[in-house]
């Protein structure tokens, strides 16, 4: 099985976020970065499928030069080689630009399966995987919790709302977006880290960016517009008043 896994480098979850001067992104100079969590699960799933069915795992990443950090980590965990579509703009680009870039990386690879995380921890649009499937002309399924392979088809378990699930069969080549927690992530071993240095990272020039697309005009911390309303009275009085305000004022109930 030839499996492409798409990964993204994001700022760590603990990073103390501050907005940049243009208010269009966060200040990430000297930030700490890591592999986007759902992508880590996608990579682990890809490695397990390779171990079970044989083949190759190729890691694809669209992002700036510093993204080699997560590419190396993926190679250290067991991916065979990598393709890096390098561009600073891709760090904050919209879904179609990123999908185009990844398509450029994957198109010539003749893969059987493409795996992506279901969304990124930073922008969280949750689109790149599905747009990529459409761009490559392959079928897709999202928020996947389990994968079974039989010859030329896949049987996958989709997560639905409220505790519901559904098995879906689709032909390969296909694309799946993977839910976090689907498996247990392996560690990168010392030998894996050393071997990763010798593995190929093919650089691909990014395609010309689209002229327009959704863009962030203002990024900000949600302000607490109002003052805290402390509701006084006996517990019964305060409770009634709170429910009233939640219903009528905050419209939260």
């Amino acid at each position, binding site marked *: 099985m030839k499996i492409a896994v798409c990964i993204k480098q994001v700022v760590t979850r*603990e990073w103390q*976020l501050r*907005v940049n001067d243009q208010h269009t992104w966060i200040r990430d100079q000297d930030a700490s970065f890591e592999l986007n969590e759902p992508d880590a699960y996608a990579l682990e799933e890809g490695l397990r499928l390779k171990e079970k069915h044989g083949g190759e795992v190729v890691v694809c990443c669209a992002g700036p030069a510093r993204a080699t950090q997560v590419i190396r980590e993926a190679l250290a965990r067991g991916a065979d080689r990598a393709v890096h579509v390098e561009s600073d703009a891709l760090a904050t680009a*919209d*879904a*179609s630009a990123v*999908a185009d870039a990844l398509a450029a990386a994957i198109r010539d690879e003749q893969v059987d399966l493409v795996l992506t995380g279901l969304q990124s*921890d*930073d922008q*969280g*649009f*949750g*689109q790149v995987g*599905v*747009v990529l*499937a*459409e761009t490559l002309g392959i*079928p*897709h399924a*999202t*928020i996947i919790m389990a994968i079974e392979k039989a010859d030329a088809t896949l049987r996958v378990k*989709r*997560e*639905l*709302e409220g*505790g*519901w*699930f*559904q*098995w*879906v*069969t*689709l032909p390969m080549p*296909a694309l799946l977006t993977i839910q976090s*927690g689907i498996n247990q992530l392996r560690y990168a071993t010392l030998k894996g880290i050393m071997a990763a240095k010798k593995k190929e990272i093919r650089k691909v020039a990014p395609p010309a960016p689209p002229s327009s*697309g*959704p863009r*962030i005009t*203002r*990024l*900000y*911390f*949600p302000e*607490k517009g109002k003052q*805290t*309303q*402390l509701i006084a009275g006996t*517990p*019964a009085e*305060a*409770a*009634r008043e*709170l*429910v009233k*305000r*939640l219903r009528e004022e*905050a*419209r*939260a*109930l």
Partner: protein
Amino acid sequence: MILVIAEQRDGRLNRASLETIAAAQSTGDTVRIAILGSGVDGVAGELGKADAAEVIVVDDPALKEYTADGWVLALEQLIAAEKPDRVFLAHTYQTRDFAPALAARLKRPLVTDCIAVTGGGYVRPMFQGKLQAEVAVGDAGAHLATFQIGAFRADQMKAGRAPIRRAAVAVDGSKIRQQPDAPFKEARQAVDLSQAERIVAVGRGIKGQEHIELAQKLAQAMGAELAASRPICDAGWLPMDRQIGSSGQTVAPKLYVALGISGAIQHLVGMKGSRTIVAVNKDGEAPIFEIADYGIVGDLFEVVPALIAALNG
């Protein structure tokens, strides 16, 4: 004209669609509502009670079960015929499965998980709700937007009478590559609190595992999920997947009720993006009150039963 794509399963309308209609109505623009499926006249009738220009039924045997391909094929034709300026959908699991493919097929931009519509575009959360962004669509032509569950209220939807018509859309079933089995329910391994609209969270103030049931009752009365700050999960009183905070989940629901939670910064970073925050704590100086919209300084063992009564009464 805004085209709202409503959602149904087995002939039952997803209430989130009513929220999306409310969102569309709030812009003042003409609203048309579409519903896809096979044998969905009942749902169409329900939708006909909204104040909209019309309800369009896309009825095709190939749409009996939801599939991404089926939905994209149908909507591609519908949108070409109806030519909306905007397409609104609820940000459900189903929408997440097909909307990006539809947008890519149409070569139109899509903004997902919006919580508000502005003059220039949309507002949506980022960085797991820690930040918000105003997003401009960047394209003068038609675009799609999905709305976070709970961002608008189903009861904000204006009622009216919308005529129902069938669309001349035919779906070639042979082009559908996904073959779905019937959905089934399973005891969930882990709770994804980030999808909950309302959350009731307990902290050290709950004092004992035996009292969690009280919070559970409040959660039920509110239609909320139960969550906890770290010490509760560390003590094993609730499982780890219920933990909110820097070492647990980050959430930004419509309503967050913090019971007996002091508001240590590790907890705050996991929930301060919530739209409405209510705090109940004995200590008036507790940091949680600094970020709460509403606060009751009092004994939660008295306040919570009173809340349950007020909700049920």
